[in-house]
């Protein structure tokens, strides 16, 4: 079924660069998600969890080094700038993103189980949460294409809940998809946002064609002049017009091979993309940093117009109460954030330097006293038996870390424990 169609679908521009490797990773993921595979019956791929070694004997995948190798590839791809330790790429941190859902009849195809639309909606929910987690000052709006007409599903907003609620409603698929109508609609909306924001569109396209009322090339030029960065994730095959759109506007075009690949491609759009400097004006935005109220305080909140007890934040300018941050004060319009929200974006601008790989045999050759334990978790770095044991070291503080800490530090923690624990090092 889906195994047969996979050969026909386009697999261009997907990050793994090798079909066999990707299947191995998928099989590994399925081993882990055995319990919650929605009864999809993925036993068909169980044989791919095995590999042959040099003698032709079967052995299970060495998942630990495989996971680490994938992580290294992701890391080096992301920081593909020349490896100067102070390479700081400017990123668009205040993003106004419209996500366009294709609800044409192509989205009701069942090659993604249960249907393309359901898979897209589920992954989009995870994407929206991840997006607001990584970009707390940004806004998302949702647009749908159905019956050749584009309609706005939700207004652009800064809180994930209202967007996700709209996604959970019934979404029916019918008719044709019109790329031009979607772009025209989004272009109209994105004209109204402040000049310091980065304008982006992400189109999740299932159809293989587009039915447009006019010349789509003109629309693409209009979007390019309005500095809107358009990206597309295709679910079917590569289409020239999408590729042209993305190339013209500086976005990325990827085509998904299956559900897990689609989710991976979608989540890659959560971190901020490298910004083109003249795309958004640099401005000083006035923001307020409210205090959280004590538990017993009773007041009327300005967002729900209800009486609330305890908690809540007070706008420093007009003293109105808002329920959660980040928000815009409904009374005076001041953007309200807390400093943890701003701090969450700093790691995009100042990423942790990738660590260098070191094999313990190598360092003992240099007559150095190789540390026996990982600096951060105290796990032993000595090898077991004849497995080649790899560990990494930070180029700035020269501390040694194990592979698991390496992944954790670069993907979640965004802090090198060695650099943070030494004052004498220059920041």
């Amino acid at each position, binding site marked *: 079924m889906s195994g047969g169609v996979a050969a026909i679908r386009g697999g261009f521009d997907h990050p793994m660069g090798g079909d066999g490797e990707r299947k191995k990773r998928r099989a590994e993921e399925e081993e882990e998600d055995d319990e919650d595979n929605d009864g999809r019956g993925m036993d068909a791929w169980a044989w791919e969890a095995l590999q042959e070694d040099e003698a032709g004997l079967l052995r299970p995948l060495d998942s630990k080094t495989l996971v680490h190798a994938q992580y290294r590839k992701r890391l080096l791809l992301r920081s593909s700038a020349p490896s100067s330790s102070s390479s700081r790429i400017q990123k668009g941190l205040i993003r106004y993103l419209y996500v366009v859902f294709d609800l044409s009849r192509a989205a009701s195809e069942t090659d993604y189980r249960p249907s393309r639309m359901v898979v897209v909606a589920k992954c989009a929910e995870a994407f929206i949460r991840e997006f607001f987690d990584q970009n707390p000052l940004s806004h998302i709006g949702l647009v749908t294409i159905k019956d050749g007409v584009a309609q706005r599903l939700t207004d652009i907003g800064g809180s994930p809940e209202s967007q996700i609620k709209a996604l959970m409603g019934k979404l029916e698929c019918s008719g044709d998809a019109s790329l031009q109508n979607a772009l025209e609609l989004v272009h109209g909306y994105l004209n109204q946002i402040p000049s310091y924001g980065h304008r982006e569109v992400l189109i999740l396209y299932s159809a293989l064609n587009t039915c447009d009322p006019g010349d789509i090339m003109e629309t693409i030029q209009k979007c390019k002049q309005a500095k809107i960065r358009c990206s597309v994730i295709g679910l079917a095959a590569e289409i020239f017009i999408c590729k042209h759109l993305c190339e013209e506007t500086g976005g990325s075009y990827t085509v998904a091979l299956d559900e897990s690949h689609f989710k991976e491609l979608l989540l890659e759009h959560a971190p901020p993309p490298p910004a083109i400097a003249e795309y958004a004006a640099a401005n000083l935005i006035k923001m307020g*940093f409210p205090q959280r109220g004590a538990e017993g305080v009773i007041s009327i909140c300005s967002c729900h117009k209800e009486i609330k007890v305890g908690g809540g934040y007070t706008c420093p300018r007009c003293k109105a109460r808002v329920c959660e941050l980040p928000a815009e004060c409904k009374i005076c319009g*001041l953007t309200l954030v807390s400093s*943890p929200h701003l701090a969450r974006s700093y790691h995009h601008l100042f990423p942790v330097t990738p660590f260098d790989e070191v094999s313990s045999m190598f360092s003992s050759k240099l007559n150095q006293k190789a540390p026996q334990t990982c600096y*951060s978790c105290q796990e032993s770095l000595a090898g077991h038996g004849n497995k080649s044991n790899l560990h990494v070291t930070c180029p700035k503080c020269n501390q040694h870390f194990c592979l698991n*800490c390496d992944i954790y530090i670069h993907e979640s923690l965004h802090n090198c424990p060695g650099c943070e624990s*030494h004052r004498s090092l220059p920041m």
Partner: protein
Amino acid sequence: MTAAQSKLYSDDVSLIVVLLDTNPFFWAASTSGNLPFSNFLNQVIPFLNSLLLLNQHNQVVLIATGVNSCDYIYDSAEAGGRNSIDAANVAAISSTILNRLENFVTKDARLAKGSDKAAAGGNGISSLLSGSLSIALCYIQRVFRSGARHPEPRVPIDSCIVGPQHSAFLQQASYITGGVYLKPQHLDGLFQYLAAVFASDLQSRSFLRLPKPVGVDFRASCFCHKKTIDMGYVCSVCLSIFCKHQKMCSTCGSDLNQSPPDSTRVSRS
């Protein structure tokens, strides 16, 4: 100045990582004040022992936060397991902790001599809390990796402030992670605060009334003067916070000449 700790949960069993602040500038200044360092240790070490007594599977890790370095002091799992806690064991643990702490503080002070002397004067330097927190989180990750398959572990950060001032940073950290923030009023009874509030495991916390802070200070400090502000200007490129309008951002060098729109938006639902 503080003893922050993080815990993880599996039934009643806790892993508690205690981050002890050994900032010599603070402790030297407080010998004539409320709580000398030796008294402080006299309260904390019995607290650590009592944690081990609460449940035989509890694990305690002590990490010291210095001004020039951070390091592991004690890990109850590495001693090869303790079959029975008796008087000799408790004394052994205490003396191990004290010896290693002394070595750490001496080493920390020695590291200071090598670095910039000018920074060592004045009103003291801050402790490297972010370093010890990072180390603690990596350790917790390691325990979770080798244990049962859990999703992201819940790690509340509890803060116990021993110094004179409230710490906005730890207030925020404890609030966001769901931990307890406490600044004890009577420091000579510190052990009682520790044992009553911070020794509770995560399962019990759902039906205990633990102290809540009066409010959480989410204000930011400006990059130019380091003073706390509740309204400021944020550079749209690098998110640096300034208290006054400026022509150029000092962090990213962007030209900020345009007059600031006061974040008004045309569309409103």
